[in-house]
């Protein structure tokens, strides 16, 4: 095409321009694909972050006409608020317990599935069901299961000769109950990741280890775990980030009660903004939360990349 245009002197100008245009379009063609998504993300994700950050430096309510600049007043207020601290502590505990619980169960089930030979695909499907069900539905279903009067759980407990519990109404059991339901819902995520990771493992190291007569436990600790390290980190990272934001489940099961034992950050921030009309304080609270999530995932990310580069 270029050769034929160069023959005609009149067309040289446009030919050169078109060639330049072609070269440019070849060089920057990727932006043509990426730009629409990038612009959309800027609008729906970056703008809200910037807005919330800005919000937290002013005093804003839904009906306020004046919005005075108050610098760190909101941050100070939130950090001094006992409820915020309680919610923060609860959230940290919640994240720690549910992530480790889901990890142990999910990884355990993935390992268990390898010993089973019949109907694996269907088992996988049933095992991941809780993940696909709306958290709100899961919470409401378990409310019914855990009801002190007619719930199936208490019926089973009394059948086994154990005392019935007022699961969600008592300060000693509400936390445990909600966390167990959270594990029930989210262990499939870990299971899926670990299942994929286990299927991708090479065979050679195992065969040579068996020839040398290594025990199953040694093989697991010395071969499986190190090989799976990156996969484990990804699983933990994803689950941790999500666990920090838990709202639906706690909202319908206990709504933070009894006596604030299940109050999480998301619940606190929701209430502060939409029930107490303290927009900028919720903004400040969520900025601190974002910061903490960011730091935790950055640490995990660094571990992850160190691993990936080493291999």
């Amino acid at each position, binding site marked *: 095409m270029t050769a034929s245009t160069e023959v005609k002197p009149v067309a040289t100008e446009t030919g050169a321009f078109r060639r330049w245009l072609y070269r440019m379009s070849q060089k920057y*063609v*990727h932006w043509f*694909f*990426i730009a*629409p*998504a990038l612009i*959309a*993300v800027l609008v*729906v*994700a970056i*703008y*809200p*972050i910037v*807005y*919330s950050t800005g*919000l937290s430096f002013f005093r804003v309510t839904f009906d306020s006409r004046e919005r005075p600049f108050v610098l760190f007043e909101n941050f100070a207020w939130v950090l001094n608020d006992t409820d915020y601290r309680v919610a923060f502590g609860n959230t940290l505990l919640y994240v720690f317990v549910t992530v480790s619980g889901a990890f142990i169960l999910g990884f355990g089930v993935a390992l*268990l599935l390898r*010993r*089973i030979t019949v109907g694996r695909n269907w088992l996988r*499907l*049933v*095992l*991941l*069901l809780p993940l*696909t*069900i*709306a958290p*709100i539905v899961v919470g*409401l*279903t378990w409310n*019914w299961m855990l*009801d002190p*009067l*007619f719930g*199936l759980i208490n*019926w089973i407990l009394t059948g086994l000769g154990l005392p019935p519990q007022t699961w969600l109404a008592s300060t000693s059991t509400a936390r445990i109950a909600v966390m167990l339901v959270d594990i*029930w819902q989210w262990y499939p*995520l870990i299971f*899926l*990741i670990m299942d*994929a*990771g286990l299927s991708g493992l090479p065979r050679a190291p195992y065969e040579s280890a068996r020839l040398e007569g290594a025990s199953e436990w040694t093989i697991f600790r010395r071969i499986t775990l190190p090989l799976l390290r990156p*996969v484990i980190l*990804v*699983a933990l990272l*994803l689950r941790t*980030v999500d666990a*920090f934001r838990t*709202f*639906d489940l706690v909202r*319908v099961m206990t709504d933070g009660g009894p006596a604030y034992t299940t109050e999480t950050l*998301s619940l606190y921030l929701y209430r502060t*903004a*939409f029930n107490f009309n303290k*927009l900028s304080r*919720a903004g400040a609270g*969520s900025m601190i939360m*974002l910061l903490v*999530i*960011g730091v935790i995932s950055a640490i995990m990310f660094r571990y992850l990349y160190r691993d990936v580069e080493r291999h």
Partner: protein
Amino acid sequence: MAISLRQRLSAYVIMGILLLFILIPLVAGALTAFKPQIIWVSSPPVWVFQPTLENFEFVFIQRQNLLHLRNSLIIASGSVAIALILGVPAAYALARFRFRGSKGLLQWLISLRMIPPIVVALPFYVLFQTFDLRGTHFGLILAYLTFLIPLVIWMMRGYFVEIPSAMEESAMVEGYSRLQALRKVVLPVVTPGIIATALLNFIFAWNEYFLALILGGRDTSTLPVAAATYVGRARVEWGNLFAVNLIIMLPVIILTIILRRQLVKGLALGLVE
């Protein structure tokens, strides 16, 4: 692998108990949706009864949950369609071109997952009041794009990376432009991936509660929001609630069964990268 019979047997037993733990709440709940009001709650539980559709009739007609079903369908499919249109080309570019900042851009997109929903909800709430978007489907669709676009890009990139780039290169040698090669050679191969991505995103949007609660108006609230309204301070309408629960659960379960392989693969691809 040498596994003794006892080990194998115990694996089956543990798996069986686990399956009971998963299935009993779901099955018991689904059964309650078909129970007449007098046995919504009972101790000991009733397993055998004359099934009735009165709960469904009640929620659909008296409580207008048909409207909420419509809202859920419009919002979930609308947001997924837009997320795919915007996200698939971006995922293709991120899988195929190495340019300055491509790796950083991908990591940055993935890290958007960390944003707590409240950070999105606050500005959108204020914005919706200003632009009168509260009570429109479009408003919620917009809010859902915040987490759907990064997810689409992440998953689809995994599918595109799997396809050898020699495919479209040879098509381009034969005179196709890159866009033609993409449309006629790459897209057909990657269609199962697009379907899996669409489904997974649909499930996320369909199940979403937080943003729907805050940003949905009276005429645009979705099924999860409607389900929560059956929980009163004094009493819970269990039969009606489980009818709505079943309507929320059923499409997702059916989709999961039909596309189980694709879904498992898609999830694993998108997650392990």
